[in-house]
Structure formats: C-alpha cells, structure tokens
C-alpha cells in the first residue's frame, strides 16, 4: 500500500498515441496538502498526465497510484473505488448541459450517497455553489446561461461536491479576466486551506504559480524535468525553465508577486506602528 504522505505517485509513466510518444519514464510524487502546479509547453502532455492519473487514459507502461490505490492495475472502471475521494475540474467546466448548476453538483452526491435526503442534498448543492463564489441565483441556471468564468466556478462546485481530499484542476484560470483569475486563485487557496485539500493544478498562468502553488513540476522532454519551489527551479539551468520564468511574462509575474509581498509588509508594519 502507498505512503499516505504522497496521495499521488507516478512511476515510469509512458504514454504514446501511435508513434507519437507523449511521456516516457515520467516520475512524479505529490505531497499531501500541497498545491502542485504543473507547467510545460503546449503539447507536452499536461492534460494527458492528469487523465492518466485519474484513470481516463490507459498508459502504455508505468504505474500510477492515487491515495494508495493503483490506477494502472485496475482492470475495469469499478476497480477504482476512490472516485468519491477526488474531484476534477475540466478545462471548459464540462457541466452536464441538461441539468441546472445545483443539479450538476448533486450528481456525485446522488451517485455515491443515495441515502442523503433530498432536502440535505439541495442544501449541500446550494452552499457548495456559494462556496465556489457564485451568487445564489446561479443555482437554478442552466450551463448555457452562464459565462465562461461562471461555468468554471460551477465546475469547481461540482468537483468539491463530495468534499474530496484531492482536487484536479485543468487550467482553472485560462480564459478568465485578470480580476476574475486572481479571485479564482484566492478561492482555490482559501478552499485548500479550509478543506485541507491536495491540489493538482495544470496551468499556464504564471501569476497563479507565484500566488498559490507550493511546488511546481515542469514537464519537458517527455518527463518531469524538475519539481520544486519557484526559487529552486530558478536555480536550475535548464533553458526551458529559465525562459519560462525569466521571459518577459515571467518577470512581470515575479515583480507583481514582489510588489504584493511588499505591500503586505508595509501594511503589517503600519499596523504594528499603529498598535
């Protein structure tokens, strides 16, 4: 059985589509209670890695273990009985289009805990929707009536429906306006701290990485070339990592973080002075 300190363990993963090899000998360990950011250029297989971890994609070789259970050894879908312990937010939200937002949240509840009364289930759906930062009126809306950002929040509410230990987020802030994206970052951080989640987060958003990620895993050359905090990654001399974090956008995000921290310090100092 797996080590409870590492809810996700990937060893020697190899995935290929035909002759096109995506991952080859990929290793990754995610620690309990951390937010791990997964970055990499387009087409390096970030989403494929997530799909392999949650059992949607059968790898050609290697081992994937989630919450102590092997995903790769599962013969059929029923063998994976930890689905109630993870939540997944897909890129576009992947809401069920014929159900309202609240009903979307209720789907996993209904599926795993049929004994929950209708009343309690409605209440759970309602507060999950509110926790995800949507207004109460949104509960009775259909996905087609929501904006892109609201769909993501609704998708997050559904991912959180069962109070999972593990949360998979595929580009949660892509396509959001900067204010919305920053709010979403804070929301994830807040939820992670309150609910004690382990978050596997795929992102292209440098601000997200700086703001909320404890560690960052870099995907390149068909494997995870480095895992660590951003300062640790900056210390490596891999050209892609350097270009990624020290490119114009990386610099801007770094500066933003520094300003943010400074402002926070000033505030703290001012408060101390007042006291």
């Amino acid at each position: 059985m797996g080590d409870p300190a590492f809810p996700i363990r990937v060893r020697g993963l190899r995935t290929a589509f035909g002759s096109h090899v995506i991952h080859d000998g990929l290793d990754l360990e995610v620690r309990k209670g951390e937010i791990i950011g997964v970055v990499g250029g387009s087409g390096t297989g970030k989403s494929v890695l997530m799909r392999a971890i949650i059992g949607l994609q059968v790898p050609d070789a290697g081992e994937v273990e989630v919450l102590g259970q092997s995903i790769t050894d599962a013969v059929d879908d029923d063998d994976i009985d930890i689905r109630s312990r993870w939540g997944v937010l897909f890129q576009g939200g992947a809401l069920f289009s014929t159900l309202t937002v609240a009903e979307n949240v209720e789907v996993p509840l209904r599926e795993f805990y049929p004994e929950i009364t209708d009343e309690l289930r409605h209440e759970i759906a309602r507060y999950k929707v509110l926790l995800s930062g949507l207004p109460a009126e949104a509960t009775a809306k259909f996905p087609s009536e929501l904006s892109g950002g609201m769909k993501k929040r609704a998708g997050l509410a559904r991912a959180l429906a069962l109070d999972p230990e593990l949360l998979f987020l595929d580009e949660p802030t892509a396509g959001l306006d900067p204010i919305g994206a920053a709010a979403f970052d804070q929301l994830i951080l807040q939820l992670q701290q309150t609910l004690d989640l382990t978050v596997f987060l795929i992102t292209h958003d440098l601000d997200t990485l700086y703001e909320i990620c404890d560690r960052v895993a870099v995907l390149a050359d068909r494997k995870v070339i480095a895992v660590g905090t951003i300062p640790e990654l900056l210390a490596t001399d891999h050209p892609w990592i350097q270009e990624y974090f020290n490119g114009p956008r990386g610099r801007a995000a770094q500066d933003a973080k520094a300003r943010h921290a400074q402002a926070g310090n000033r505030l703290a100092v001012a408060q101390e002075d007042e006291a």
Partner: protein
Amino acid sequence: MGDATRYIACDALVGPANFPHEAGTMRALTQFQITPAPDGGGATLAFSGPMTVASVGHVDAQLRHIDDTVAVIDVSGVAVMDTVGAWTVWRLSRDHGASITGCGDSAQKLIDAISRADANAHSVRPERLPLLQRVPDKVGEVMIDLGHGIVQVIGFLGQVVLSAGTLIRHPSRFRGKALVHQMELVGVNALAIIALMSFLVGIVIAQQGSVQLRQFGAEIYTVNLVGRLTLRELGVLMTAIMVAGRSGSAFAAQIGTMKLTEEVDAMRTIGVSPMEALVVPRILATMLMLPLLGFYSSFLGIVGGAFISSLALGIPFFTFLSRIQEVVPLHDVWVGLAKAPVFGLIVALSGCYQGMQVKNNAEEVGARTTAAVVIAIFMVIVLDAFFAVFFTEIGWG
C-alpha cells in the same frame, strides 16, 4: 471465555444510531444524543463519530425532527468533520438558535466558511407553474411555436433561394467540393442499403400480389403491379424515407453540433455564409441524388419482383423485365422522377433548418434531429398524396 467477551463487546455496540452488524464492513456513522437540561431550559445535542458526507445522511432526517429546543450543540466527540458535517451543525444552530461548543480549529474554520456561504433558500430548478396553469401554458407555447415555425421555415427557404441566387451571380463562390462530398454521403454511401431494401420490397410485392391475383387467374398482372407501383410510388417514397433517416438526421445533428460549438458563428465572422457553405450544398446534393436513388430503387424493386416471379410464378426473369417495358407507361417514370427532387428538398431543408435552430444544450441536438426526421417523413407522405391526386387528374393515371 472468548464467547462471553465477544457477546459483551457486541452488546455494547448496539444502539439506536448504530448498526453493529455493519460496523466492520460498512463505514462508521454519525451518532448523536440529546440530553435535556436539568432546569428545563434548552437541551444539549452531542455529536460523536465522524461527521462527513458519507455518514451524516443517515441521521439527517432524525435531526430535522428534533422536538426539543436545543440550546447547545456539542461537537467535541466528533472525530472528523467535512463541510457537510459543518453545514449540518451550522444549520441546527441557526434553526434552534443554539451555540456550538467543543470545536477544534479546523472544525471552527469549516463552520465559519459555511456560515458565509449560507443563503436564503433558492430552488435548484427554475420555478414551475402549478399543473392547471402549466397545461394551457404549454399548449399555448406549442401553438405559438408552430405558428412561428411555419413562418421561420418559409423564411429559411427564402434564405436558401437567396443564397442560391447569389451563387448563380457569383459562381466562383460555389462550393463544388462540398457538393460532391455531400453527394457521396447522401447518394453513393446509401446505394447498398437502398438496394437491399428495394430488392426485398420488390419480392414482397410480387409474392403477395401474385397470391391475391391468382384468385382471378390474373397472375400475369403481377408484372404490372410491381412495375407501376415501384416506378410511380414506392421507389421514390421509400428512398425519401431512407434518406430522411440517413442524411436528414445527419444534417440536423452535424449542423446542430456546429451551432453548439460556435463553428457556425465563427464562419459568419470570417465572412463565410453558413447558408452557402453548409446549407446550399446539402440541399442541392439531396435534390440531385434523390431522383437517381429513386430510379435505382425502382429498378432494384423490379429486379426483386422478377427474381421471385421466376422462382415462384414460373415467369422467366427476362420475360418479366421485357413485359415491364410493355405494361408500364413511360409517364409513370416521369411521375416518380418529378416527385424526387421535391422530396429531396423537403428532407434536406428539414434537416438543415432543424440543425440551425439548435441552441443551449446537447439535449436539443437530439430533439431537433428527431424533429427533422419525423417532419420530413410526414411532409413527404402528405405531399405524395397530393401528387398522386394531381398526376391522376392531369391524365397520367
């Protein structure tokens, strides 16, 4: 000794909110106990065991029907709590005006977060009218939709004609490749299934017809029956129904999905008219292919008839075919062929129109596809009846 201990252990586990026989295999459940206050004030509600999504559901109904007024909720015995447990505790404290004691740090954090997310009851589905109002409401809606639908279909046909007009004025914008591709999908790919169907229907008509005609000693008229029926009516009618099922539905589903994924909107913004790029090639391809398929179907129906006649009636195969030439007037062929493009128009128009009407969700793609096929088949049969009367009246009986 062993037996006695086990007995005691089991006995200790028996309780109202506890299922000892399941304890080993099933998940642990939330338990609670109400202690009335000695001075007659509010009671104390003490929770123990886990309070999670997996365990609260079993006691929720009981918690909702607590008769005593609860003044204090004690959660010090709770092993683990998640948001569902926090919600339950918070809801009880809200409803009873009770205070919460015994919270650990994390439980307190959860309850605080939940309390911020509380809102007045909003229903999970849009409001529904009571039945008595809903029925006339729905009927009215359907009637209005029907009225609008007829106007819209005529409008859609007008747009198609306009686009066709534009394409005639600017032939370079005509999408020949799309047309050929659609002709392949509608026509060539349907050859096998239409052949099989027509051949079998031909066999059935000849066989059943001959049984009836034999009673009058008029078996030889089986040739007339098969020849005139397939060329005049059945060939084209069956083909139209088959194409409606194969291609009309495909048009609706394909265009409908493209509407959902905003491909149609993307086309418009690039300056490509969806009418010219999607609708006109499909309608034109269907109108061109249906006469050909209809004639092909009639031909195979006759071959089917000839085949069974040579086997069962003793009419040689080629004699049957040459008799066809003598007994079927040429205008029967024209009647069949004249109807075909009209049926093709109806089938393709219905498919494209319904596809273009899709919005909102995946369910609508299904509904619209069904509507496309049902309406197309219905309209084809209605029009066929009109044609039958019309052609007989003008002397092509």
